[in-house]
């Protein structure tokens, strides 16, 4: 390209001022024809009318400070209701003077989520972040945590066993012996515990007073149900997706059956099953915590959906990847964890976050089994006869909080989509 002008051609002039700047933009985008111009004006009038009415109600005639709902009547929005009830809406029936505990638990969970959204943390650090974050969260919520010796031994066995499978034949013998030793200690310890040689000892950490799950409520419940629902559903979904592609007919059949069964029923019916039917099948006197039952129902439900998303990722991989992994001599577990999953998961992260957003909102269905999540505590604020009769304010407030969470997740998903596709973009 050169700047030499062909002979006889006039010098280029700047475009007329009516076509640049604000006016130019408006003319091009808002008033390009008579029809568009009229549409623009009508829409501006409608939006302005709605907005002015809304602001009149929500701001100019609103009551921000009142002793009871009676003082609010006859005016605009009653934000005094939110002011009176916000602690209940956020934290439910958690002991009032200890509300700092769920507050810090929520902060810990948010910190955990924000830290793990940074791609630089996507390695072993992630395990540390979630381990410490979850420990802090549940310690604050429960007030005390007792880690029994059986659990410690079981963890040793599980970690050792996993290490042996994952690193088998590709790790130096010293490391492999370490995994074997860990698994061995776990297995022997568990056997000894069952026989009764080891005492029923537990590591009790109890810095605060115990608060049972029945008293939990509000935003921590919504966050725990959604976050841990997805956290546990994720590996479960991976296993289901792999099982569905398995060559073994029994495993394949089980996985397909499970996925189709769960996807074929609404979450509400699963929750009702977990809360109403399950206790009838259990021997009398045996009770599984209501919150845990709901959590498990959410995990099963989310697992089936995640499995289908991950199957999409698995199917997008070219066959050569599988064959190459086989040719190198990796076993099934190594092939899957080292070659297949990293590529498949990269593809499906945006739809996974989409599922997460959906589940964050779906958790509000637990209100039908009497668990007080954020939406349900907002509902409850309306029952108090002192303050009843202002559903608009409460639901607007709840919608605002949900929007803050979901919008930030959706922005993050957008960012990830760009970030992860850097390699494939031209």
């Amino acid at each position, binding site marked *: 390209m050169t700047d030499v002008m062909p002979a006889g051609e006039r010098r280029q002039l700047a475009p007329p001022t009516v076509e640049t700047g604000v006016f130019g933009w408006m003319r091009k985008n808002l008033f390009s024809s008579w029809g568009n111009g009229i549409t623009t004006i009508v829409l501006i009038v409608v939006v302005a009318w709605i907005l002015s009415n809304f602001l009149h109600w929500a701001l100019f005639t609103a009551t921000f400070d009142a002793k009871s709902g009676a003082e609010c009547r006859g005016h605009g929005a009653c934000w005094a209701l939110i002011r009176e009830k916000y602690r209940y809406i956020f934290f439910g029936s958690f002991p009032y003077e200890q509300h700092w505990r769920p507050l810090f638990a929520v902060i810990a969970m948010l910190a955990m989520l924000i830290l793990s959204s940074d791609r630089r943390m996507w390695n072993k650090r992630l395990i540390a972040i979630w381990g410490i974050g979850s420990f802090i969260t549940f310690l604050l919520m429960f007030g005390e945590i007792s880690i029994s010796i059986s659990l410690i031994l079981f963890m040793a066995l599980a970690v050792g066993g996993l290490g042996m499978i994952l690193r088998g034949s590709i790790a130096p013998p010293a490391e492999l012996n370490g995994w074997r030793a860990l698994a061995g200690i776990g297995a022997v310890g568990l056997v000894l515990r069952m026989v009764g040689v080891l005492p029923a000892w537990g590591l009790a950490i109890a810095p605060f007073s115990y608060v049972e799950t029945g008293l939990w409520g509000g935003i921590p419940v919504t966050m725990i149900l959604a976050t841990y629902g997805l956290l546990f559903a994720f590996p479960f979904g991976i296993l289901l997706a792999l099982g569905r592609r398995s060559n073994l007919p029994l495993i394949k059949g089980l996985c397909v059956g499970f996925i189709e069964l769960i996807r074929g029923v609404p979450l509400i019916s699963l929750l009702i099953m977990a809360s109403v039917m399950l206790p009838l099948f259990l021997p009398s006197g045996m009770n599984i915590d209501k919150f845990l039952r709901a959590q498990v129902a959410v995990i099963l439900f989310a697992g089936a959906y995640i499995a289908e998303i991950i199957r999409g990722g698995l199917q997008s991989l070219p066959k050569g990847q599988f064959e190459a992994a086989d040719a190198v001599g990796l076993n099934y577990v190594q092939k899957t964890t080292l070659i297949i999953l990293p590529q498949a998961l990269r593809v499906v992260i945006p739809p996974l976050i989409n599922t997460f957003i959906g589940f964050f909102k779906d958790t509000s269905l637990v209100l039908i089994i009497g668990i007080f999540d954020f939406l349900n505590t907002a509902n409850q604020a309306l029952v108090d006869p*002192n303050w009843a009769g202002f559903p608009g304010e409460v639901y607007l407030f709840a919608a605002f909080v949900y929007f803050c969470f979901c919008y930030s997740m959706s922005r993050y998903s957008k960012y990830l989509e760009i970030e992860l596709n850097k390699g494939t973009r031209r």
Partner: protein
Amino acid sequence: MRSFVLAAAVGVAAALAAGNAFAGKDLDAIKARGALICGVPTGIAGFAAADSQGKWVGLDIDVCRAVSTAIFGESEKVKYVPLTSQQRFTALQSGEVDLLSNNTTVTLQRDTALGLDFTAITYYDGQGFLVPRKLGVKSAKELDGATICVAPGTTTELNLADYFRANKMTFKPVVIEKAEEIRAAFYAGRCDVYTTDVSSLAATRAANVPPPAKPEDFIILPEIISKEPLGPMVRHGDNQFADIIRWTQFAMLEAEEYGITSGNVDEMVKSENPTIKRILGVTPGMGKALGVDDRWVYNIIKQVGNYGESYDRHVGPHSLLKIDRGVNRLWTQGGLQYAPPIR
């Protein structure tokens, strides 16, 4: 022959007695746990609702608190489990809760087929009518030709039709599913009358009246057209626990009848009236017979109050619901609340 029959009868009686285990397993479990687990509704104004600090309050809650006081001498040893109406019976059957204080209407089916037992009736509810005062109606008998807002597919709708047919009147139903929407329709004037249970009518009137109208501009008509007796429930199998709940309610009624309130109970202990002495445990024996502390009634009245106090506080004149005491008055004042004597 006669002696054989007698022996057999004694044997059967002994077997039954052993089967009915007097020292109940539920009560033992509650004592071992150190807390009563009470199934409550998930939010009904005046009966069970969480206040701004997340504390449960209401008439149903006071039942749990009173039973806790009878067993432990303290009203706060209760864990509340909010249950929806679908969950509540299975939660009790499966042992998730010890006691259901859940605005449950006593019916034959529930008392028998579900394997549950009602103890006492804590509140007599019933279907009534809410009308604007400016309508000038004083009785439901004057509602011929009225437009009536009602929820579909409930006994409420059937009761309404039956009542109007029995009184040879006609009405125009406006059928709306959701309570919030019915209330809005009623206040917007889409119907003259709103019918549902009186306690719910009172909550509607207290909370949802749009300005500039006032709650006093609406009245609940005196006619009650259905019976909805509400009471706490327990599982079959622990009669002693059921007895404690039943007599806790009776004690609160007896206390009101004899003028014992949370304010004057300490003076009443010095009373010379033998009945009051028996009730408050000054003359021992009653608590022991029930298997609780002899000062159980004293503790209940001191910490929870008598029935009238509880009623006034949550649904009566001291609350916003302002439900007329009506049939829930003591029998001495022409109501239905009648407690057998504590003796």
